[in-house]
Every structure is written in C-alpha cells, then in structure tokens.
C-alpha cells in the first residue's frame, strides 16, 4: 500500500518556527559570527578566523571548567537518580497522604533559582547559618566561602535539595502507571521485593528515568544562577562551572570572541548529548509498540 503524504500540516508549525528563529537561531548565528572575530566595542569587528577556537581548545582554564562541569553533573546524577527512585518507591501508592507527599515534593521546584542560591548562602554560612553552624558544632571545620571541598559539598547538596523532587515526581508517575495485576502476579510467583523492583518497577520506570536523566543532565550542565549566587564560582575558581566561566569571559573580561567560541563548543556538547538521549528515547518507544 502506498501512503499518501500530506505535508500541509507543517504550515501549522510556522509560528513556532518564527519564535524559535527569533529567540534561538538568530542569536546563535550571531554567536557564530562573534566567534570568528575580535571586537573592542562600538560594534567594530576584526576577522580572526579560527583563532579563538584554537585558544579555547588549548586553554587550561577551559579544560578545568569543563572538568568541573562534568564532575558536578556526574555527582548530582549519581545522587539524584537513585535517591529520587528510592523516595518514589517509599511514597504511598494511594490514600490521602499521596497529595501531601506530592505537594511537599513539588515545593523545592517552585523556588526560583536565585532564591535557592540566596537561601543556601545564608543557610550554609558558618557563623550565622543553621547548616554551617551545625556542621561546625559537630567539630567539622566547614566554611564554604574559603574551602573548595566545603563549597562543592554545599553546591551539590543545594542541587540535590532543589532537583531530586523532579526525579521523584517522574519516577512516581512511572510507578503509578504499573497496573496492580503485575504486583499480584509477582506475589503469586513469590517474587522477592528485589525481583519486583528489578523486573517490574525498573523496566516500567526506565522511560521516565531516561527523561529524568536527560533533564537533570541538561539542567546541571548549564547550571549558573545557583552557584553564582551561592559561591560566585569561588573560592578561587573551585566552583567555576562552564557557564560561570563563560559569563566571566564575555561580560567580565569582554572577550566576546573567546566567549562565543566557548559557547559554540558548549552548545555542540549539549546538542550531542540531547541527540543521544532523544534517539535512545524514541527508539525505546518504537520498540514498545
């Protein structure tokens, strides 16, 4: 049978296309233009070719920021995904407590980024903050404004507090979609709790977990506001992630060329990861059908 192809529906997408062109494509093209030029302001540009790319790729500062970025993303994924699944499993499946749990879980997600940063800044201050004072009272020397390790600990803790809920909500949605018959069958077969998790819950959750990993990866990979407010990238450069470094280069030092080249490289990395996840996800759907 030959399919009839009617592509007229694509015209319906035109408004979105215009919007995306305006807020993504045209700015991106401008960044590409910047990345091959040098400017000293006044909208005067001088062609430099691929010099900025060579400098960025060879710069130890960029390598360090990239390394920190990957480390951060890896750490928060390694904590948030298992923790989120665990919390979702512990949540009640029915009854009045469901809504209570869901509301509590959603609360951190409703707090704006800069407020989260400011909250945690005060919360973790060693002299007046509850967290900072408590840790120091335990006899642990903790000062996130001076010790890189403490700063990392605080940034990671803050992100876990802010975003684990998202994983919980997604995982919980996945769990809720499992019909009771599956559990009954498992009970009849005498399946252990672990087997139920391994062969029923995890496979049923894998789709939403892929989305959770993708969202958390992208979000943490471009994290800016929270660490900027909390640590300002410090102490020294200890928590200067890619986006913070990028803004430093672009606005602090007005190296638009370098910053643009960094943005493009950054964008390409995000694009690759998005594509991999997207492909994995869509093929998973196709496999299910």
């Amino acid at each position: 049978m030959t399919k009839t192809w009617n592509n007229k529906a694509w015209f319906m997408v035109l408004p979105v296309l215009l919007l995306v062109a305006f807020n993504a494509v045209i700015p991106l093209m401008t960044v590409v233009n910047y990345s091959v030029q040098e400017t000293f302001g006044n909208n005067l540009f001088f062609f430099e070719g691929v010099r900025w790319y060579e400098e960025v790729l060879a710069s130890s500062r960029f390598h360090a920021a990239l390394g920190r970025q990957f480390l951060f993303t890896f750490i928060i994924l390694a904590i948030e995904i298992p923790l989120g699944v665990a919390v979702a499993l512990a949540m009640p499946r029915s009854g009045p407590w469901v809504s209570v749990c869901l509301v509590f879980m959603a609360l951190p997600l409703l707090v704006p980024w800069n407020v989260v940063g400011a909250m945690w800044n005060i919360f973790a201050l060693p002299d007046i903050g509850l967290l900072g004072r408590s840790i120091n009272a335990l006899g642990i020397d903790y000062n996130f404004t001076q010790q890189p390790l403490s700063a990392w600990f605080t940034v990671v803790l803050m992100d876990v507090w802010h975003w684990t809920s998202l994983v919980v909500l997604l995982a919980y949605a996945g769990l809720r979609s499992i019909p009771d018959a599956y559990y009954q069958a498992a009970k009849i077969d005498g399946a252990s709790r672990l087997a139920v998790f391994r062969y029923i819950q995890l496979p049923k959750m894998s789709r939403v977990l892929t989305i959770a990993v993708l969202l958390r990866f992208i979000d943490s990979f471009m994290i800016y506001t929270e660490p900027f407010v909390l640590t300002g990238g410090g102490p020294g450069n200890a928590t200067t992630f890619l986006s913070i470094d990028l803004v430093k280069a672009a606005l602090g030092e007005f190296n638009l060329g370098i910053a643009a080249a960094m943005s493009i490289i950054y964008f390409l990395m995000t694009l690759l990861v998005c594509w991999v996840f997207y492909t994995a996800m869509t093929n998973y759907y196709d496999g299910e059908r």
Partner: protein
Amino acid sequence: MDLTWMAWTWQTATFFAVIAFLLLGMMLWEYVAPGGGARVGILRFETTRGDRLFISLLMSAYIHLGWLAFSDASLWGATIASLAFAAAVFRWV
C-alpha cells in the same frame, strides 16, 4: 533591514548559506523521493536521511574541533575528512 548588529563576515555567511542550501536540497530530495529513505543501518536503529544529515553535520563540527585541537595542518583536511565521514554516514547509517 539592518543586520550589522549581527556582525556578519562573508565566511560565516557562506557557512550558513551552505547549511541553508543543504536543507533546501533535502527538501527537494524529499519532494522527489518522499518517505525520508528510512532504513536500519549500522547504528541498529531506524534513521531517515534527515537524521543522517544531522549526524553528518554534528560530527563534522566535532571533526573540525578535534582537528584544531590536535593538528597544526590546514583545516581543509578536517573538511575533507568530514565530507568523507558524511558520505560514509549516508551510505551505511
């Protein structure tokens, strides 16, 4: 329309023109042979020719960056490598 704020150079304009022509070419190709030429290649999942173009373009960017990072030879080498890669993608992926 004044586009000077975008700081155009003829090099980047050429770059985007090539991409625009590629997209135009893809549309023509789709018009001549509809269906996207979907098949399962060496990546073991279904790709259309749009996917193959995307993979080629994205990997070309990485090939060029890798070339800049690890080689002092002319960047045209990377372009030739990218074209070869794209041909391979369109043949086998």
